């Protein structure tokens, strides 16, 4: 970010993270939240419950599944299982992020607290930008961005909820489509390891394949299967190149 200066106080880096709210990833997410807001308003879920959901759950796909479960009258256990299965991906995402941002002195409780702010957007943003932040300030930088992003979207829901129900279908459709298109572009752009490109293609192919094969566990199977295959392929290629070099 700014100029990657090695000096600078914690407050400076927290503020630098906060300024991430004006980035393309944050803008895309906020537009996606307008789309989610339209979805909940049409479903008749009161605004205070939507705001609580944004703060408590945070991950957008998990919220879409939670709302769908509520609408279909699912009981607590059924809803829990559906949401939790869709959220397993958060574990490898957090596990990949933690070694990038922590130092030896970072307390685990702080990482546990901050992990709540991890969802796809914050993850993509952090993986892309923390490289330019001195290691001792990376956790602070992420906290500034993550906390601001959640609070801003809670506020956004309060403001736009009453307007979204009247959106024309084209606008609602385009808002929804922003999410996948933005994820595609930003993950590709921010990849710093060759394995990311292979895994991306692997997941895009494996996702629909496992949806057809075993729709209950499609995302999980696609991630572990497609990801492992991608890792093996990239590793083989890398080793061969090291040998010939």
């Amino acid at each position, binding site marked *: 970010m700014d100029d990657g200066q090695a000096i600078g106080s914690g407050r400076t880096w927290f503020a630098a993270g906060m300024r991430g709210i004006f980035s*393309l990833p944050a803008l895309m997410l906020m537009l996606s939240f307008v*789309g989610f807001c339209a*979805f909940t308003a049409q479903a*008749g879920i009161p605004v205070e*419950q939507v705001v*609580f*959901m944004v703060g*408590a759950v945070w*991950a957008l796909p*998990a919220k879409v599944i939670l709302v769908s479960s509520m609408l279909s009258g699912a009981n607590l256990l059924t*809803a*829990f299982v559906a949401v*939790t299965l869709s*959220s397993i991906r*958060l*574990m*490898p*995402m*957090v*596990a*990949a*992020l*933690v*070694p990038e941002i*922590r130092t030896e002195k970072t307390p*685990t409780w702080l*990482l546990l607290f901050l*992990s709540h702010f991890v969802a796809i957007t914050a993850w993509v943003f952090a993986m892309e930008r923390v490289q330019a932040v001195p290691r001792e300030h990376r956790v602070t930088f992420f906290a500034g961005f993550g906390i601001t992003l959640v609070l801003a979207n809670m506020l956004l829901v309060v403001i736009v909820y009453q307007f979204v129900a009247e959106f024309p*279908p084209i606008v609602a*459709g*385009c808002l*929804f*489509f922003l*999410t*996948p*298109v933005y994820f*595609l*572009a930003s993950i*590709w*752009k921010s990849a710093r*390891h060759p*394995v990311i490109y292979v*895994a*991306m293609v*692997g997941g*895009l192919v*494996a*996702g*629909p394949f*496992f*949806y057809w094969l075993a729709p209950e566990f*499609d*995302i*999980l199977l*696609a*991630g572990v299967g497609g990801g*492992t295959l*991608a890792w093996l392929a*990239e*590793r083989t290629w890398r080793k061969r190149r090291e040998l010939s070099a």
Partner: protein
Amino acid sequence: MTVFEGWWIYVFIAIAGWLATDLWRWLGVLAGNRLRDDSEVLNWVRAVATALVAAVIAKLILYPTGILEHSPLWLRLASVAAGALAFFIGRQKPAIGIATAIAVLAMGLYALGF
């Protein structure tokens, strides 16, 4: 029991939403704390995390909910293809790819009378 009223719904969201997601985040912290940032295991974790997110993306495009559920698949795929083409021609600027994909989708939806 009406789902949308009273304190019960907040307990419902807290358990089926909050706990159901944070559980995995906490496990991620505990696992990530043991990984060195140059290890081969972390490379594998990166690959799995990326493939999981990619699978979510593929599902959002192929099996959308809401308005897009009624839009033709070829239009959604054409929008993504046009966006990808613009992205690679335009020096991998995300904004160029995203704007192109959304513009194609909007024109298509309009032409189809949405």
